[in-house]
């Protein structure tokens, strides 16, 4: 079942989420419109991928986070520009809270703040191509329509800063939060990073085998070989860490497992992006070459839902609080099945 889903998704992404489509969405949104984003979202809705975490009775596939890893990994491999992973998670959480599911993509923000009687969130990933924002403020989850917010540009082209005035909250839905949205988002971003790390590594390996200098492929030089070996190490550890982050029977991630996943994938993002650009030389630094579609996302996702330092601190506190041998905390992280959520 999982294999069928991921193969179908791979086909969709290979055909419909090409580097050209990613570029088109980014440049159209910068110009204030997004027909390419709407077209890609329609494809996703038609094929049901946004509903995979919903129960079968609710029209989904009943996937747990454990299975979602394979889906999110593929989205990362293809530099998915729309908040599809976010929407999958948001729909599962909303359904669990008994909220009627809205049409359209849902962006996530774990840091919703009170502002002038309304609510504010900054740097919301993918909000420029989403219809809704699911945000956490203290013990509450808010489902807020993007259409009622004052939207201003953020740093990354597809992100936005949003302010919902007090009057806009009338059209919002508020439910108690059953878990931490920050933990959940960090878990799914770990899987996205795992995918983009793989693509960046494989692209760099191919480039090193093709690019000729001094009369031979640069991959024949030992210095380049060792840099690629180090990249492979980071990617292998990060991909394992991301699987750990997603290890859960239901749709609520385990905070300590997520800390491991997000810290290790974020560490790897910096190292792998740096080595990839070093090996590619000037061509990899151009807009025209595809590498930047993925390395920009490595940095973006590293900076989403807590950097490595944030999660290292969380993990360190858990390790000290645990007492006993470090081995037992490690085994809890790698060997235990998370409680059913």
């Amino acid at each position, binding site marked *: 079942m999982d294999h069928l889903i991921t193969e179908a998704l791979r086909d969709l992404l290979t055909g419909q989420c090409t580097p050209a489509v990613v570029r088109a969405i980014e440049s159209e949104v910068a110009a204030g419109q997004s027909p390419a984003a709407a077209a890609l979202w329609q494809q996703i809705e038609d094929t049901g991928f946004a509903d995979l975490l919903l129960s079968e009775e609710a029209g989904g596939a009943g996937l747990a986070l454990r299975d979602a890893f394979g889906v999110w990994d593929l989205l990362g491999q293809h530099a998915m520009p729309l908040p599809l992973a976010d929407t999958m998670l948001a729909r599962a959480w909303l359904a669990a809270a008994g909220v009627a599911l809205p049409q359209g993509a849902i962006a996530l923000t774990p840091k919703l703040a009170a502002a002038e009687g309304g609510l504010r969130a900054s740097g919301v990933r993918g909000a420029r191509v989403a219809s809704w924002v699911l945000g956490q403020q203290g013990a509450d989850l808010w489902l807020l329509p993007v259409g009622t917010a004052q939207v201003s540009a953020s740093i990354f082209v597809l992100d936005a800063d949003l302010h919902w005035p007090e009057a806009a909250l009338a059209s919002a839905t508020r439910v108690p939060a059953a878990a931490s949205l920050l933990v959940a988002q960090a878990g799914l971003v770990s899987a996205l990073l795992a995918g983009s790390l793989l693509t960046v590594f494989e692209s760099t*390996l191919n480039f090193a085998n093709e690019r000729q200098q001094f009369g031979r492929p640069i991959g024949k030089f030992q210095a380049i070989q060792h840099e690629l070996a180090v990249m492979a190490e980071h990617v*292998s550890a990060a991909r394992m860490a991301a699987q750990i982050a997603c290890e859960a029977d239901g749709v609520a991630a385990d905070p300590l497992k997520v*800390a491991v996943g997000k810290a290790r994938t974020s560490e790897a993002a910096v190292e792998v992006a740096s080595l990839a650009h070093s090996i590619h030389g000037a061509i990899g630094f151009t807009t025209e070459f595809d590498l930047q579609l993925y390395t920009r996302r490595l940095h973006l996702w590293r900076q989403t839902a807590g950097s490595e330092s944030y999660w290292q*601190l969380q*993990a*360190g506190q858990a390790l000290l609080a645990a007492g006993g041998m470090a*081995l037992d*905390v490690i085994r809890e992280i790698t060997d235990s099945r998370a409680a059913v959520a």
Partner: protein
Amino acid sequence: MTILNGLALTRIPPEGEALRAQVRAFLQEAVKDIPAHIRAKSWSGYDPAFSRKLGEKGWLGMTFPTAYGGHAQGAFARYVVVEELLNFGAPVGSHWIAERQSAPLILKYGTEAQKQRYVPQVARGESFFCIGMSEPNAGSDLASVRTRATPNDAGWLLNGQKIWTTNAQHCQYMIALVRTSGEAADRQKGLSQLIVDLSLPGVTVRPIEDMSGDRHFCEVFFDNVQLAPDALVGAEGQGWEQVTAELAFERSGPERLFSSVVLLDQWLAFLRTQAAPRAESLKLAGQILTRLAPLRALSVAVQEKLVQGQSPIVEAALVKDQGTVLEQFIPAAIADDLMALEGEAVPHELLLTLNYLTLVSPCYTLRGGTRSILRGMIARGLGLR
């Protein structure tokens, strides 16, 4: 499926975990009087009596067939026992190489007589082996070994020299990689593995002191050492293939992750005594944990591939290189953390362990293949060579 997306999160099966509690209860008693800086020697710690005790418990040769004194258990049962031994800093050095490599090699390539003769003694923790690979002019370039065994009427006449042979001064036997046919220019061809009884006339063992003050590796000289015909393990001329097949087993186990874990646990215990540890200390603890846990999961995933009969040589190199980098990072980072404290007395015993690991950790990236050699192997596995 490539190397990098073919390693799935795998759990140790319940039958593998079955012995953990029992082993842990034994170790809590067995090592309680050994100071941490001695336990930190990990698989360099030498104690034949302890090895015999493990043999009596049935925790050596766990995966060997019962016909040769083994216990016919799964590889994961052994993995769990080894993981516990290393995390407690138990002195496993006496039997380590014999049990991990030599007996499995004899079981795989040896004759029935060789299996009967050597393997049960290893499983009892009575017979210790070392591995004769490096020579003064054959380190990373192992195929250039010059030690030669010449066939004669009595078997093989051995002449030459090995170096950096761990524990040779304590072992009864060495399995040596030597030239048995051809010339140096033949490289990997014409090499064979021979079992050398180190008590034979003509063998001289001279320990070398390392920078930590320990004497665990040795020079070994062979001056017309007469070996019997049955000293040969496996086929004449197949030594290189036999040696490389062992390496995936040697490079991905818990011993490539936990060499600094006694210090880590001791440092964590010290932090727990502080009313409010520095945020930098907590972050460092988390940095180590978030690097170590995925590596342990990778090590288990490689073990699973070995159980399935695959030969994950590149995956094992990925684990070993990262594991040793982390094992060396731990003492360096903990030293930085402890020396950043103001007005806090660091326990002397913690400083002893820290000092020992600072001095011994350079060996992590040379034993079992240097960092450069491992990265070259990974590059080969990626198709770059």
